[in-house]
C-alpha cells in the first residue's frame, strides 16, 4: 500500500522489462498479414469471425429502434442462411442495454455495454462504479471499461490498477473488458505495460480501443497485447481474452487477426469466449465474402442491411 495525495492505494510498479523491439513487432505483424488463406479454411475463418463480432453502435444518435435492428442483425446476420452464426455480442451505451437485452432474449447473443465514462474515462471513481453497477443490473453480460489514460500517462499506475480492480468487483457476474485506448498510449512499451496492469487487476479481456480515437486497432499493437496474454498464461495458467476494436472493416483484415491469434495463442483462443472483434461495418463485408463463396459472383452492399 502507498499513500498518494492522501489516499491509500495499492502499490503497482511497472515490471522490469526490456523495451519492446518495435521493428520486430511490426515485421512479425506484417509477415502474419501476408498469409494466404483459401477455400475451406477461408470459409471457416469467415464464419468464425462472424461469431466473434461485438456488433457495435456507439453514437449519440442511437435510438431503441436502431438498437433493435442491430440486435435482429446480430441474431441472424443473413436471413436465408442458417449456416451463418450469430455474432458474439451487441455492444451499446448503458441506457440502451435494457432494449438490447429484451431484443436478444433467448438468443445466446450477449449484451455488452461501454461504461466508466466512455470514451474518455474522465470521471470520478464513485460515478464510474455506480454506472457499472446500474448497467449490470439493467442486464449487461459484459462491461467494456476504459482505463484512466490521464492517470496512466502521468505515471499514477496505482490509480489505474485500483480503478480496474474496483470495476471488476462492481461487475459482479458480468465479464469485464478493459479498453487501453492504445492510440493514446503512444509506444508499444506502454501498451505492453498497460496490458499487464489490466490483467493483474483482474480483466477478463483486454481491448485495444474505443473506436473514437485514431489510430484504433492495429495488427502490431494487437500482437504486443497477445504476447502479454501468452506470457501471463505460461506464468499462471490463466487465460485472458483479447478484443481488437475500431478500424477493422474488411473480411481480409479480420482473417489477418485470426491468423495472428492462432499463431500467437493457439486453438484454445479461437472462440468467441476468448477473442472478439469490435466492429460495425465489418459484419457486412464478411457476409459479402460469404455470399461470394456461395454465388461465385462478387456481392453488393445493396443486398445487406444496416449500412
Amino acid at each position, binding site marked *: 500500500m502507498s499513500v498518494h495525495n492522501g489516499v491509500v492505494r495499492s502499490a503497482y510498479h511497472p515490471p522490469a522489462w526490456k523495451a519492446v523491439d518495435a521493428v520486430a513487432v511490426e515485421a512479425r505483424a506484417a509477415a502474419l498479414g501476408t498469409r494466404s488463406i483459401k477455400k475451406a479454411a477461408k470459409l471457416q475463418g469467415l464464419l468464425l469471425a462472424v461469431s466473434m463480432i461485438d456488433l457495435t453502435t456507439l453514437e449519440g444518435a442511437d435510438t431503441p429502434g436502431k438498437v433493435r435492428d442491430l440486435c435482429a442483425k446480430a441474431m441472424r446476420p443473413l436471413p436465408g442462411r442458417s449456416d451463418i452464426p450469430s455474432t458474439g455480442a451487441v455492444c451499446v451505451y448503458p441506457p440502451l442495454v435494457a432494449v438490447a437485452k429484451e431484443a436478444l432474449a433467448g438468443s445466446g447473443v450477449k449484451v455488452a455495454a461501454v461504461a466508466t465514462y466512455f470514451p474518455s474515462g474522465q470521471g470520478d471513481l464513485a460515478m464510474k462504479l455506480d454506472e457499472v453497477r446500474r448497467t449490470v443490473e439493467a442486464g449487461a453480460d459484459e462491461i467494456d471499461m476504459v482505463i484512466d489514460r490521464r492517470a496512466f500517462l502521468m505515471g499514477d499506475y496505482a490509480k489505474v490498477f485500483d480503478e480496474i480492480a474496483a470495476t471488476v468487483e462492481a461487475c459482479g457476474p458480468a465479464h469485464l473488458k478493459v479498453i487501453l485506448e492504445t492510440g493514446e498510449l503512444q509506444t508499444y512499451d506502454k501498451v505492453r505495460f498497460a496490458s499487464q496492469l489490466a490483467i493483474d487487476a483482474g480483466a477478463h479481456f483486454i481491448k485495444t480501443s474505443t473506436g473514437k480515437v485514431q489510430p484504433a486497432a492495429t495488427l502490431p499493437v494487437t500482437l504486443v497485447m497477445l504476447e502479454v496474454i501468452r506470457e501471463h498464461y505460461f506464468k499462471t495458467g490463466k487465460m485472458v481474452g483479447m478484443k481488437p476494436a475500431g478500424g477493422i472493416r474488411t473480411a481480409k483484415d479480420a482473417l489477418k487477426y485470426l491468423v495472428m491469434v492462432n499463431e500467437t495463442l493457439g486453438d484454445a483462443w479461437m472462440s468467441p469466449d476468448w477473442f472478439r472483434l469490435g466492429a460495425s461495418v465489418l459484419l457486412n463485408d464478411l457476409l459479402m465474402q460469404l455470399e461470394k463463396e456461395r*454465388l461465385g*459472383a*462478387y456481392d453488393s452492399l*445493396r443486398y445487406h442491411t444496416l449500412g
Partner: protein
Amino acid sequence: MKTPAQTNMRLTVAKTYKLFIGGAFPRTESGRSVALRNRSGEFVANASRASRKDLREAVVAARKAAEGWAGRTAYLRSQILYRAAEMMESRRESLTATLVKAHGKTAKAAEAEVSASIDRLVWYAGWCDKLTQVLGNQNPVAGPFFNMSSPEATGVVVLFAGESSPLLGLVSIVAPVICGGNAVVACSPIAHAPIVIDFAEVLATSDLPAGVVNLLTGNRDELLPTAAAHRDIDAIGAVGLSMEEQVLLEGGASATIKRVWLDADRTSSAWAVADHQSLYRITPFLEVKTSWHPMGL
C-alpha cells in the same frame, strides 16, 4: 571525362504500363505482365494483364466515387470534362507519338485520332449541363399535380472497349457515360495498354475525382464473366462482342437485372464520324426519375 549528357549516352527509361484504379496506378495484384511487341517484333513495353480481383478493386473504387460524382453540379462535371480535353491537348505530341511507336499508326492517322478524341471530350463536356433540360420533362397529368421526369446516373458502369481503335474507341464510349454522372471501369485489350495508360495520365491530372474512371487492360474472356455476374455493377457496355460473349453477358447480367448495351467494333476513322457522338450514347446509362408534386407549392 564526359558526363552521360555530353556523350548522349543514357540508360533507356522503359515504361511499364500499369492499371488505373481509384486515381492510382497500381500493378495488377496478380503480378502478370505481357511484353508488347511492334509489328517487326521489337519489344515495346511491358503491360499489365488485369485479373478478376483487379476488376473487383476497380468496382469498389468506382462505387466509392459514384455518389460524389453524380452529386456534383452538372456545370462542374462539364468543366472537369473540358479540363480533361485541355490536358489532352497539351499532351497531344506525346499521345500521337505513342500511337505511332506503340500502335503502328502513321503520323497522320495518329494525329487525326488524337484530335478526334480531344474534340469528342469537348463535345460531351458541353452536354453535362444540358441533359436534364433536353431529356427531362414536365408531364401533363389529369389532376391537380405536377409530374416531372428528370434523368439521373445509373451508377457503376463497366465498359469493354473494342479491338480496333485504342484511343478514340475508348474515349467515345467512356465520355458519354461519365458525362451522365456515372462512375466507370473500362477494360481494354492488353495490346492497347500504352495509349490507354497515357490517357489515364491525362485523366489523373484533370480534376476528375479518383475512381470516377478506372482503366484496366486485360483479356476480355477472363474479365467479362466476372463483370456479368458481379452484383455491384449497374450496367455493362461492350463493343464488338461475339454472339457467344453476348449470350454469356446477357445471361450473367440477368441475375441482377443489369443494363446491357452493345455496340459494333469499328476503326478509328469510323469512330471519328460525327454519328458516333450522340446524346443517344448518353441515354443508355441514365435512369428517368419521375416525381409527383402537389400543385401550388
